[in-house]
């Protein structure tokens, strides 16, 4: 647990969209899914998920509905809308470009050494 990375500001939304893209999930399920797909490498305080979820719903990227969870409890499930799917594609592309560029820049050795 100690070598978990603090997530960059603004990337939580992307992670949520990615997690939900694999199927409708409730809030706790999203957290588990993020942990699963990131190999538990990211540190997210559980409550911090919710402002992000509401923001995405408000932007029309997610839609929510009440249902029953696998634990037989009531839960609010989130799934992607068409706009959300599009946004996920765009964000993924631009993240990849950015990550490649930064990785490239960091890998470059100073010329004059």
């Amino acid at each position, binding site marked *: 647990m100690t070598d978990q990375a603090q997530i960059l500001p603004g990337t939580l939304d992307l992670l949520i969209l990615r997690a939900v893209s694999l199927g409708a999930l*409730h*809030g706790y399920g999203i957290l588990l899914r993020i942990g699963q797909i990131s190999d538990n490498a990211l540190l997210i305080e*559980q*409550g911090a998920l*919710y*402002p992000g979820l509401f923001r995405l*719903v408000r*932007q*029309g990227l997610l839609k929510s509905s009440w249902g029953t969870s696998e634990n037989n409890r009531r839960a609010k499930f989130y799934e992607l809308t068409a706009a959300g799917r599009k946004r996920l594609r765009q964000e993924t592309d631009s993240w990849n470009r950015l990550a490649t560029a930064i990785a490239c820049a960091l890998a470059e050795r100073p010329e004059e050494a």
Partner: protein
Amino acid sequence: MRILDSLRFRMASLFQRSKMHAEIEEELRLHIQHRADDLERSGVARAEAERRARIEFGGREKYKEEIHRATGGNFIASFLQDARYSLRMLRKSPGFTAAAVLTLALAIGANAVVFGLMDGLILRPLNVPQSESLYGTHYGNNPGWQSYPNYLDLRDRNRSFEDLAAFNMVLGVGLDTGKDAIVANGFAATGNYFDVMRIQPYLGRFFHSSDEHGPNSAPYIVLTYAYWHSRFHDDRGVVGRQVRLDKHPFTILGVTPPGFQGTLLFLTPDFFMPIVNQEQLGTESLNTRWTEHTVFESLGHLKPGVTPAMAVADVDAVGAYLERTYPKEFGHKTTVLSREGLTSFGPAVRAFVAGLTLLAGLILLAACANLGSLFSARAADRSREVALRLALGSSRKRILRQQLTEAVLISLAGGAVGLLGSVALLRRLSTWQFIPNVPLHIPVALDAKLYVVAFVLALVSGLLFGIVPVRQVLRANPYEIVKAGSSGRVGRRLTVRDVLLVVQIAICAVLVTSSMVAVRGLVRSLHSNFGFDPRDTMVVGVNLATIDLSADKVPAMQRRMIDALKTIRGVESVGLVNGYPPLVYTASIRANVFKEETSDLRPANAAIAPFRYDVSPGYFEAAGTSLLAGRSLSWQDDKNAPAVAVINQNFADRIFGSVANAVGRNYKLQDGTHVQVVGVAENGKYMSLTEDQEPAMFLPFLQSPMSDAYLVVRSKRDPQQLASAIRSKIRELDAGLPVDTETWSNLLNVVLFPSRIATMALGVMGVMGAMLSITGIFGMAAYSVSKRMKELGIRMALGAQRREVLMAALGRPLKLLAFGSAAGLLLGLLATRVLAFIVYQATPRDPLVLAGVVLAMSLLGLLATWIPAQRALSVNPSILLREE
């Protein structure tokens, strides 16, 4: 789509706050439960698992707050915060707040009043079902659809109307309930009138086509709700009761519903009677085809699918048929169909209201420009505060929102005050009887629409002047401003404020110019030559049809009345005219006139259509009309004598070439009568003051007697005494004869009414414009002085003269004033071309108006800069320089 979603979300969060709260609470609680389930499954006791889940979740309150912010849920909270802050700021500068609120109250009030008028006059259709398909033939289409036989033909031959009704006005009828006889006004309507209107009686029943069985066969009347309420005190027993109209018995059938006030907007009748009975009240015979006086308007619903243009073609086709069939009795110009209510005054009323709307809009624009520059000055003054807030981490968006909130608060307050004022004014207007004893009124709408309009105007203008300083805030650089201190830069270049001030002053100058042009026009029209002298003249209406008197005795009785009135002390001369004298109630008769050599007397061949007056000997003396040639009419010009006439100069010029040529020549009337010209009278005005010079002829009343006549009495005596003397003289002749006295000057008020109203409205707008320019210039000058106090102090310390100080302080505002006024004057002069439409003799090429505007604007400038100038001069350099 996304905007809509977001909006819906926002709305939901506004109205379902508590529900949302509960839902969020529930969702977070369930999250912790799910986590606890997992922990429990890994072997932790339930209580411990829940405790740990809660800790892992983190600060629940903090996240809830964040969720609210994420959903825009704190919108209301931050708005309230802004509003509270704005109120505090406004309270800190009460002078500014009061000036701003007052300015807007005036501007929005003016717009609300104009909207109330527009709503009542134009937007609101008649209060009948499906009024949108109700069309009527224009009044003034003489002698076409103003006669009953022609109406019958139109009703039966047209293919456009579902059914066609018609009505005529019967004014000044004595309505005798048995207890008292009071003069009332009604509509004589065709039997199908109420059925065409598709309304049901409030009480009793209406008359229908089945009640009509020829002339004078339906002695029934229907009361309007208002008249039933005021005269009969809501007595439900009136149905079936008998009343007398001008001595003839009529039975009350029923009462109209409260919302129905006849089919004219300006004139509300007291009762309705069948048109087949209107002859009893002294109008011409219903069978006369060539008259223009038995029908006022025909109206009906167009059939589904029939457009007004198709209907016009159809009606014109019927007209062409009638013209072929009755070439001597029918003549009509092209038909105009109009929406019911305003009749032929529609275009003029619409133009007037449109003009008012434009002017009121200009006022609001000027007020917005005024407030915009005030707000922008204020923003400049508050740049330090804005800079501090920016430096402390406030967002520009938030600061702008606060400033807009301030602007909107002011505009809403102004709107509320303005609305209160305008509602009071509209209430007065709607009950105002602007011409005594005439049942005309101004239809005014006072309903929810007015409030909505005022609210929207307030909101829009608030946003409009609120965004003026936006650029200032957006560009504000906190570091620079805080460093620079409060004096700031004194701008030399043209700023937004300068432009706004020039625009505002130009608009105000337009208003001042138009109001001056209108006032001058009115003054001139009061002093123009009417062709008679209305001063010291009493007009006495006597309708002999109201008493039992056989038609052949009417002229003798009228002569007895003339002789009797002559014996009153102080009376110089007395004359009589059949129907209305010139310029009374904009009512007059025209008749076709043919040249001597014309033999085919169809209306199309008429040479001219002069106004026709049948007058007694002595009329010209009493009216003060001077004769240019020939003789006046005499008592010898009676039924047995050859037909003669006195014509006016215009008639003489157009038919006979000149005045000198006219006397002794002949012309022909529609019925073929040869008329010999015995005299020529001066030109005059007959129907309205704005008419072009028209021909007129005066025929001897003895040759075409009529029981409805006006006596013209010239006397220098006090009108009240004279009126009572006249009344008692006539009562000596017949005790039961209703007499109606009014000075001719008062009656002229009716004709002058449109230009009076226009002048009044423009005058008010002009005064408002002047007030706005004062506040605008004052604001600018005061601001400029206060900004430059320090500079002025230094100038004075260095020995500047008073004049130089004033120039430095006020030169710029005065320059802007001059520039704006000049622009406004030019625009105003262009605008007065439009005014000439309503205001008589409104000409902009009037040196007095030009001088007046220049003088007014300079006076306004002087007035507005007086206080700032005093302040600039009172600068004490030693104190001022020590302060900073």
